[in-house]
């Protein structure tokens, strides 16, 4: 709540600054900036050559996107995994038991990004870290420690993925839904200010689909080898690795259409008779390593993604998140927000996802609960000029290429002096950035 007020105060200041600025006549403005702009853009061409490019990194729950500022796509998308020095096994960096373990694994990951993929010298370079609003403090603090102390970077800007993704659209208002691996997070953003009152999240995303596939395979899946046909998967659980599950998700599964989805949920959720199920799509023979064949049934292919749209006991699914977020927003922002939905995150790349989500939303809007509260008939969606899984990264790449970056970043000196990071949930951290400090 305090944060909202703060933001409101902040935006008010901005508005004031703007009106002050408007007071100048057009001629004044020209005289002030016109020539400056001209000379700056002339110098710009020269400076691109030797100015070291800024590193943009987005460490996701499953995949890490990394590249350089001003480019149209990341240089690499690699799994957020490193070999754990203690257990000697490759493990996701988010599975850490304490911060010193996280420090070691982040060091490994950043090292691989910088010296294997980007091939740049990190010392005194600027870095933009794309992060989720829900990123744990200990994670970002450890990341800052790795970047500043281990790699001695010049400055770091932690930027919210939801805000950044709006930059790729040339707008500053949007209802942004990030559906990645671990969770789905909806944040409404109005005129560049996140409405924190309206954020909604649900721990259902790509990972939930994968665990649904796994349980279904364990229950009904069969493996055929040259010796034995149709052996239950549960008797050879080691053959179903996480990589296999992920590959099944990517290559076999899809988000089914609305009417079929309703029929499926009627049977699986509310105990309807199995003969009401729509005819399932054909099975797939999925080759496993070692010559055995895994039978992936049509049901698994079609039913697994239903986990996204099944309403739980509190009647929450990823579609209701958008509506709930809208309900929480001030009434005069709702119309604009509902006509500017932005979807980011890799799970949105599942075939059929958008169509289904749109159908779900239209259906939910007809329900009296939402029809009474929201005067919205339909949603409109933005299509960012990227693939969904790196939209936020691209926003970071755009920010990183701007001249204002230094004034918004946390410099190494400031970090070493104060030893802490600016954080949106922390009121006194505002003066950490260079721009603010100059004012003081």
């Amino acid at each position: 709540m305090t944060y909202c007020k703060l933001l409101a105060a902040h935006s008010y200041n901005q508005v004031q600054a703007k009106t002050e600025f408007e007071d100048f006549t057009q001629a004044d403005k020209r005289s002030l900036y016109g020539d400056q702009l001209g000379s700056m853009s002339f110098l710009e061409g020269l400076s691109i050559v030797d100015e070291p490019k800024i590193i943009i990194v987005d460490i996701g729950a499953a995949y890490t996107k990394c590249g350089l500022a001003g480019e149209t796509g990341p240089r690499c998308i690699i799994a957020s995994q490193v070999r754990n020095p203690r257990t000697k096994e490759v493990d996701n960096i988010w599975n850490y038991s304490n911060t010193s373990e996280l420090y070691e694994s982040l060091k490994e990951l950043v090292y691989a990004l910088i010296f294997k993929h980007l091939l740049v010298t990190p010392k005194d370079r600027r870095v933009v870290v794309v992060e989720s609003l829900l990123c744990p403090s200990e994670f970002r603090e450890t990341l800052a420690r790795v970047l500043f102390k281990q790699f001695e970077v010049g400055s770091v800007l932690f930027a919210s993925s939801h805000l950044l993704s709006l930059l790729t659209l040339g707008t500053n208002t949007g209802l942004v839904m990030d559906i990645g691996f671990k969770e789905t997070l909806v944040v409404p953003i109005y005129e560049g200010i996140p409405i924190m009152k309206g954020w909604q999240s649900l721990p259902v995303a790509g990972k939930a689909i994968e665990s649904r596939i796994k349980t279904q395979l364990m229950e009904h899946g069969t493996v055929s080898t040259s010796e034995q046909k149709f052996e239950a998967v549960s008797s050879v659980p080691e053959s179903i690795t996480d990589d296999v599950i992920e590959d099944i998700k990517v290559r076999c599964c899809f988000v089914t259409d609305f009417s079929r989805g309703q029929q499926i949920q009627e049977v699986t959720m509310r105990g309807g008779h199995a003969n009401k199920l729509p005819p399932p799509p054909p099975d797939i023979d999925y080759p496993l390593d070692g010559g055995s064949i895994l039978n992936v049934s049509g049901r698994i292919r079609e039913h697994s993604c239903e986990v996204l749209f099944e309403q739980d006991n509190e009647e929450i699914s990823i579609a209701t998140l958008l509506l709930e977020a809208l309900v929480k927003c001030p009434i005069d922002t709702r119309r604009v927000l509902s006509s500017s939905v932005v979807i980011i995150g890799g799970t949105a790349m599942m075939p059929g996802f958008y169509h289904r989500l749109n159908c779900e939303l239209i259906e939910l809007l007809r329900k009296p609960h939402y029809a009474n509260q929201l005067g919205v008939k339909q949603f409109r969606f933005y299509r960012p000029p990227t693939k969904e899984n790196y939209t936020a990264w691209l926003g970071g790449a755009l920010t990183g290429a701007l001249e204002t970056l230094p004034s918004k970043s946390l410099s190494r000196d400031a970090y070493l002096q104060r030893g802490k990071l600016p954080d949106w949930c922390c009121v006194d951290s505002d003066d950490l950035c260079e721009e603010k400090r100059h004012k003081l």
Partner: protein
Amino acid sequence: MATYADLELVKYLCCCKKKFSVCRLYLCKYCLQLRCTDCTQHEVDTPYCPHCLENMPSGEAKLKKNRCSNCFDCPVCGHTLVTRSTSHTSPSPDDPTKTIAKKMYYMACGFCRWTTRDVGLPDQSVASGSWPILQNPHEQRISSLLENYKIMAQIEKAEHERKKYVSRRSHLYRQDKYGGSAAGLRRKGMSTFSSMSSTESKVPGELEPSVTVDSFEPLPNEYFTEPAALVKTTKLAHRHSVPEFQPTEISKLHPIHKHLLMRKSLRCKECEHNVSKADFNPSSIKFKIQLTAQHHVPEIRILTPSTFTMNKETIVTLTLSNPSVFGMTVSLHPIEDESDTDYCSAKVELPKKELLLAGRDEPSMQMYDDSSQADEFKDDPKVIVFRKGNKIGFVVKVTPVVNEGDVKIQFMMKHEFRNTTAAALQSESKEPEIVWLEHKVYMNLGPIAKKDPNVSQA
């Protein structure tokens, strides 16, 4: 026995209080301190292509996004593609009755048999360099966004600068009203030129936001009726190898320019001197600067395994080898303030006398006669078990004080070091200065024998 060659058994303490085996450490000649990989600054030296082994200047590598322009990887399996040539006959343009043979080139993977023809890429008439480059379909939109944001950022920055200026010299502005001051004149001059500035027309706000859609295509019917064509669909790794395109069909995969590797140089974080710098030529395995600790610090190893029992003195033979070409004196001391409780599971009696080591002399290493050398150094046979070239075997007496687990000991090793840095040479009569270096050494000698009554007296 393989465990006694294990690198992790004998560790040296780095200046950052972490323990590493000697081959993982560097010795900074200027700080005279051991440095591990964390205490060194890594820098990109020269990028090169791992296939054609050609250096690429870092400026060019930057432009080409760290990819070799001539070598390609298979988009399916990642193996390096080879160029194949075929002859292609086509009717001659001059005389339609004759045909002329022309060499055409395509690329094939020697591992998974993928070829550029599989995805419908036409054969090329030159062997390399003419393969089409994919363009990001959104490139224009993104660059127009970027242009616009850059202008906005400039205005924001200018506004910021101006505010500082105004607050400092507000009186100048007051004078301007009457058109007297030089600053005011300059500003007027600006305004006449600014109308010609090209960027002037691009005021912020011109940027069109992206279009929104309210309906999406439903899934094609094949999803419900046809089995998914696994062989035609790409895996996630295929998609991520080309982040900007992420094709879902195998038929849309294009050959990928090979990613460059780089030679790295290491710098001491304290004094910023290089501790490791590779030769410029990528095919050379030599170094220009190589200050790995193994070349300067005597290495201690365990010669043979011993059986330990609690509170029983055991003789352990260790070897010590001198990596430098000069003779070296080494002395071992206990560590007084044993802060590391992990490494004091035994009491250790170290040789009292200094240990003398012969220099490393590669050509004559095989010709030393043990006995003559022992005489030369007047070795005490109770301490020095053998002597061979630059290496000696010496004994320490170890008494474990725990009844289970590994026997771990620690001690301080002092050794001579000839400082041959330029600074040290200049100071005194061009003779290398000899300094004493101290390193803390931590050893794991192996587990304590299990008290098994059947075998105990064997």
